[in-house]
């Protein structure tokens, strides 16, 4: 079974994130960059499925600047076999629509039975790219999976819902997105880190994918930010120390503000 995992490099969750005043895109220089946390679960799930199905391969696909190659290396050091890096200055400012176009085209360059993604990136948090890629490629969409099983050419997942979960099945090839509950991602071993250095990573440009420059980046974005501002700091609230009547004081606050 050939599995492709789409990953994204994002600013560390703990870092303060800013928009760039010139073009309203995320300022990626000002924060440490890491693999999007949910993508670690996607990589882990792919590795587990590959281990359970002998002869499987796991390929890591990312788009992003040169530096995003670090994220492929991390996944390779966890145990993935190969990488594809779409790197092109023209990609800067791509919105979800353009991102899904690039990923869909890049998926066309490699054979796969299963595509796995995290449900969302921790920077943009739109959670639409998996559905968009499925739509573009006509793939069955098995998203928000908390459990994935593959047997006899069929993939079955538990899809998290507001009321519990749906059991969803589809014939391969198919696309799956995973939630963090699904597994516990492994840490790269020293051996894995050394082995990763020798694994192949192909680089592709926008032109290599047969996309034109105006289909990606800021030029190809179908949405735009008109203005932005830091949220004004909140006026300091009332903080009281509980000296035995903290609950009563809180009750008074809730009643005064008509929550009761």
């Amino acid at each position, binding site marked *: 079974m050939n599995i492709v995992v789409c990953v994204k490099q994002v600013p560390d*969750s703990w870092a303060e*994130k*800013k928009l760039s005043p010139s073009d*309203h895109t995320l300022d990626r220089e000002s924060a440490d960059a890491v693999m999007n946390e*949910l993508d670690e679960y996607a990589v882990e799930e792919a590795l587990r499925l590959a281990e359970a199905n002998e002869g499987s391969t796991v390929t890591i696909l990312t788009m992003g600047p040169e530096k995003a190659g670090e994220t492929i290396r991390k996944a390779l050091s966890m145990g993935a076999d190969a990488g594809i890096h779409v790197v092109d200055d023209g990609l800067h400012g791509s919105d*979800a*629509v353009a991102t*899904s176009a690039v990923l869909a085209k890049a998926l066309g360059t490699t054979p796969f039975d299963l595509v796995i993604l995290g*449900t969302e990136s921790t920077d943009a*948090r*739109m*959670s*639409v790219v*998996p*559905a*968009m890629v*499925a739509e573009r490629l*006509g793939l069955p*969409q*098995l*998203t*928000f999976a908390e459990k994935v099983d593959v047997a006899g050419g069929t993939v079955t997942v*538990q*899809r*998290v*819902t*507001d*009321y519990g979960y*749906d*059991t*969803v*099945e*589809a014939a391969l090839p*198919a696309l799956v997105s995973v*939630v963090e509950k699904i597994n516990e991602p492994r840490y790269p071993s020293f051996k894995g880190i050394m082995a990763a250095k020798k694994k192949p990573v192909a680089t592709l440009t926008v032109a290599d994918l047969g996309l034109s420059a105006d289909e990606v980046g800021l030029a190809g*974005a*179908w*949405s*735009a930010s008109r203005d*932005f501002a*830091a*949220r004004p700091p*909140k006026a300091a*609230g*009332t*903080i*009281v*120390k*509980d000296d035995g*009547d*903290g*609950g*009563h*004081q*809180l*009750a008074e606050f*809730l009643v005064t*503000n008509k*929550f*009761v």
Partner: protein
Amino acid sequence: MAEVLVLVDHVDGTVKKVTTELLTLARTLGEPAAVFVGAGFDAARDKLAEFGAARVYVADADGLTDYVVAPKAEVLAQVVATSSPLAVLIASTAEGKEVAGRLAIKLGSGVITDAVAVEPGTGGDAVLATQSVFGGSTVVHSTVTRGTPIVTVRPNATPPVAQAAAAERVDVSVTLSDAAKGARITDRTVAARTGRPELSEAAIVVSGGRGVGGPEGFAPVEELADVLGAAVGASRAATDAGWYPHQFQVGQTGKTVSPQLYLASGISGAIQHRAGMQTSKTIVVVNKDPEAPLFEIADFGVVGDLHQVLPQLTADLKARKG
């Protein structure tokens, strides 16, 4: 006046509150029209009329709800093709955002998710959406520059205001493509019902974190929630520890909530958590640690043990209610 389509979020015809909020917002942009997919329109009709749907496009053929997400996008794409709406509004839930994403690709339209407000655009923009990003630290105004604007709006963005309309039924017949039938739902598993409001659209959320100390520590959180008519939430520390079910997690990798009142107990307030609740209108924090970062965004805070403060608060509120 151009139509503004609202995808109805419902369970067997019971319309969710967020849909009445979207109809209220749609009115500020154009003429509200609803799109209803699945069974139960008769049960939903009165509510949609009460909140101003002039027309309701109904697609209730068998099988439309047997597949993941894609059928809803196909129905919407078909209605957009005939109605040429000014915009499409969809609830910003996990599924709503996925419907919006697929619809954007089908229509060749831009999409904005997680809007907390939508208003008419200026200078040629059809709409202007307000988003609160980076855990609420930055406010962005965005627009769609191509196609029919598709905007997903967070629950509690606006108070629903009734305004009667006809809710005239317009049947939509859809033949699903094979691609839309790729991922089949074979079973639906309903977790034990709590009787509490749904977390993502509750007006009040009471949540617990590491400070509750264990699964049994959620008892005072739940008791307070019930006296307030609130939903219960949990921090990732609490759900990762298995103290509370995962679907109630509020935060970056869980649900984003924006209630009138968010009462956090035993939650320090890491960025992970703040990203899921920072746009709440009023924030109350109970924590033993006076240095807990969540106090920085609290409207009211009590430095104290939640196991003392919460039961006292619950008893006080019960006494006031008589």
